[in-house]
């Protein structure tokens, strides 16, 4: 690969937030026609670097050059006009607008200043077809699942004629097929000479698509490497600053068939969301759910937590019928639910990290019995340490990096010591180290007798953790497979695709 002149060059970038120095003298360059991965632990400063580049945050020190000329963008609009198209980490779209509009708002095809709606819808349809996405483009975006929203955000960014495309964790809630689609598009863009900055915590993805890697640690530059010259283990070591011991090994999960059923869903269903299903989860059992986007995994989780009202069927615990009318009721039965959409359904932005962590516990105790400051301190300190949450517990949770926010949400439910823990995409946006940490935690918890319903887009992860895997297809639970040696990702894929019993 002949080194051409970098299209983006950032040098000596410093960004200080109240309470955190997010970037400290970082140099970075991006060459045309390459896919450049930006790597680092949660809170390393990846998103901040991107935001500084595109003018969301002003730089405190340092210089940014675009195609050799110094620039200082006043905001994303200016960056976009200069040819930098960005998908930020959290899906940043307008739920009240239609899917098509979210793709085109601000740059709609017009004739004499009048928006040509037909054209908007037609082009949106076309564009989404390219991503193999079949959605009603006139439906409001908020009616789509997070994954679809993420695809829409990507489609919007890709459709802009840009010299630089920035994707901050675009794949965090996509499944394998979607990711493959995305990579196909990325490769095509790369061939057209577009520079792509790509952030992901999936090492496999990085190795599949990236040409070059820049690693950040604690807001400092560790180095820039060619992907093919940097083996995975070294990459991880550079990211976390030490060797990651035994990442892949997870021990101790004999099939716990003998334990009592903890919760049984009988013909539970909800019209338009998920077809009636029957599912039993035993104490100490990890049940994984696999399926494509919108196949209804989240819906099952929400029904079991009482977040939505079931249309029919019943739930039994300990042989007795229980009604899960509200999250409260579910919590009374010691069920906990860690939602996939941490921003809308999980965290309360304005509250501090500490408050967010004790929120569910406090809700459980009621308003008149406050969690004492000492107890709260103790819990917070314990889980901040256990999950390695980086950030000041007394700062608003919104100032944390995406991955650390996810850990806060997890901590909230872990202190509840539930009997059934529902985890919907808990490893979304979490770095390798922390992911291994969380996986180990799940195993530990289930060994201790807790039942876990584990939802993840990564089949590997589902397979590694679960005793039993439920497969969903078109909102129907089509199969429940015991996770023995015969079960591989391939057989699972087959199930998801065909639905026929093998």
């Amino acid at each position: 690969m002949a080194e051409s002149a970098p299209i983006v060059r950032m040098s000596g970038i410093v960004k200080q937030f109240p309470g955190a120095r997010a970037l400290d003298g970082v140099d970075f360059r991006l060459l045309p026609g390459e896919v450049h991965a930006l790597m680092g632990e949660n809170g390393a400063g990846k998103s901040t670097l991107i935001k500084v580049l595109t003018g969301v945050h002003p730089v405190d020190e340092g210089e940014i050059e675009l195609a050799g000329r110094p620039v200082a963008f006043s905001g994303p609009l200016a960056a976009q006009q200069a040819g930098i198209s960005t998908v930020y980490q959290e899906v940043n779209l307008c739920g009240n607008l239609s899917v098509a509009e979210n793709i085109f708002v601000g740059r709609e095809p017009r004739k004499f200043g009048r928006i040509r709606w037909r054209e908007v819808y037609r082009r949106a349809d076309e564009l989404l077809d390219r991503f193999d996405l079949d959605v009603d483009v006139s439906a409001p975006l908020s009616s789509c699942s997070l994954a679809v929203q993420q695809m829409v955000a990507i489609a919007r960014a890709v459709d802009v004629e840009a010299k630089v495309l920035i994707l901050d964790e675009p794949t965090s809630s996509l499944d394998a097929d979607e990711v493959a689609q995305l990579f196909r598009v990325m490769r095509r863009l790369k061939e057209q000479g577009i520079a792509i900055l790509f952030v992901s915590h999936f090492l496999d993805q990085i190795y599949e698509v990236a040409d070059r890697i820049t690693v950040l640690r604690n807001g400092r530059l560790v180095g820039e490497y060619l992907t093919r010259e940097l083996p995975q283990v070294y990459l991880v070591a550079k990211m976390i600053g030490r060797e990651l011991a035994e990442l892949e090994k997870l021990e101790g999960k004999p099939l716990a068939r003998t334990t009592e059923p903890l919760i049984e869903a009988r013909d539970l269903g909800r019209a338009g969301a998920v077809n009636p299903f029957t599912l039993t989860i035993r104490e100490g059992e990890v049940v994984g759910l696999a399926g494509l986007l919108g196949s209804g995994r989240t819906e099952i989780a929400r029904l079991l937590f009482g977040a939505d009202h079931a249309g029919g069927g019943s739930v039994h615990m300990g042989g007795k019928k229980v009604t899960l009318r509200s999250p409260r009721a579910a919590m009374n039965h010691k069920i906990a639910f860690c939602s996939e959409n941490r921003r809308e359904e999980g965290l309360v932005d304005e509250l501090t990290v500490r408050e967010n962590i004790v929120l569910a516990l406090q809700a459980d105790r009621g308003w008149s019995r406050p969690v004492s400051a000492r107890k709260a301190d103790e819990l917070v300190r314990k889980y901040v340490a256990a999950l390695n949450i980086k950030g000041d517990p007394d700062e608003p949770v919104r100032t944390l990096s995406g991955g650390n926010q996810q850990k806060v949400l997890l901590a909230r439910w872990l202190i509840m010591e539930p009997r059934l823990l529902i985890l919907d995409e808990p490893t979304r946006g979490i770095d390798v180290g922390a992911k291994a940490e969380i996986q180990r935690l799940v195993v530990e918890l289930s060994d201790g007798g807790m039942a876990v319903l584990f939802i993840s887009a990564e089949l590997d992860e589902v397979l590694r953790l679960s005793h039993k895997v439920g497969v969903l297809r078109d909102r129907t639970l089509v199969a429940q497979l015991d996770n023995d040696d015969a079960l591989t990702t391939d057989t699972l894929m087959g199930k998801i695709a065909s639905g026929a019993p093998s």
Partner: protein
Amino acid sequence: MTATTLPARRFGVPRKYVPVAVTGCLFVAMFVIGGFRYESFATGQVVLNVFIDNAFLLVVAVGMTFVILSGGIDLSVGSVVALTTMVSATLMTGHGWPAWPVILLVLVMGSVLGFAMGAIIHYFEIQPFIVTLAGMFLARGLCYTIGTESISITDPVFTAFAQTRINLGPDLGISPSVLIAAVVVLVAGYVLHYTRLGRSVYAVGGNENSALLMGLPVARTKIAVYTISGFCSALGGILLSFYMLSGYGLHAVGMELDAIAAVVIGGALLTGGSGYLLGTVLGVLVLGLTQTILSFEGTLSSWWTRIFIGLLLLAFILLQRLIGVRRSLRPSGS
């Protein structure tokens, strides 16, 4: 990921139009009930009178719709209306200015005021409620500084606008103000649905932060919205001058609440990003028809009038909710 995963979405009224449709139906229902209850109610002129009597409110509410759609609020509209009538009356009656320059001047004045408030709201990140509240004090205060008396307008142009009736048929007529209001509604509808500005208004109202990250011109949109509202208030003030033929510092007290109520009754969400101009038109009509019903009733004491307005509002909102919720429950979604 096949087409079968999609719930059928295209039956009947699309969900996003349900609030507006419900409001429309309820409006018709109100009219029919009134027609049965009162003699000489069910005539075309009663409906036209609702337009004649509320043309200015309609224009003001159109401006308010922009603001509310963008997630803001504008409390200054009533005062700006009053200020407009006051300035017009003083200039024409007191200083002998001709009508057209005055009209131009007050329109510019309203827009500038709106622009200034929008700029403060955006650049200094102060809540719209407070900025426009200060604007409300300012405009009303300016009225009183100009004069505390009510000033008659005798200008021939204004009188002509006030007293001309455009005949639509036997015993049916509208005022020119109605036409002006109609034009404003049409233009505003076009802007909201067929221009980038309009769509940016919805986007900013939906999620300002996202809109910013999506690269939309948030600053321009927010300032434009308040400028439009200021302009509409001034225009509404001119229509009110036509209607009253006077300028007075106590005109249009509380009109901001009427305008907000009209927009919200029409199904818009105060949190922004959701609602339609047609809803606003219906909202104004509902408020107007309520008043008509009250004066046809004609036996209510002052306090029963207020209680009755409250009850009508309640009944209306409740029905709107109940019907709207039942309709929108049918399609899926959490």
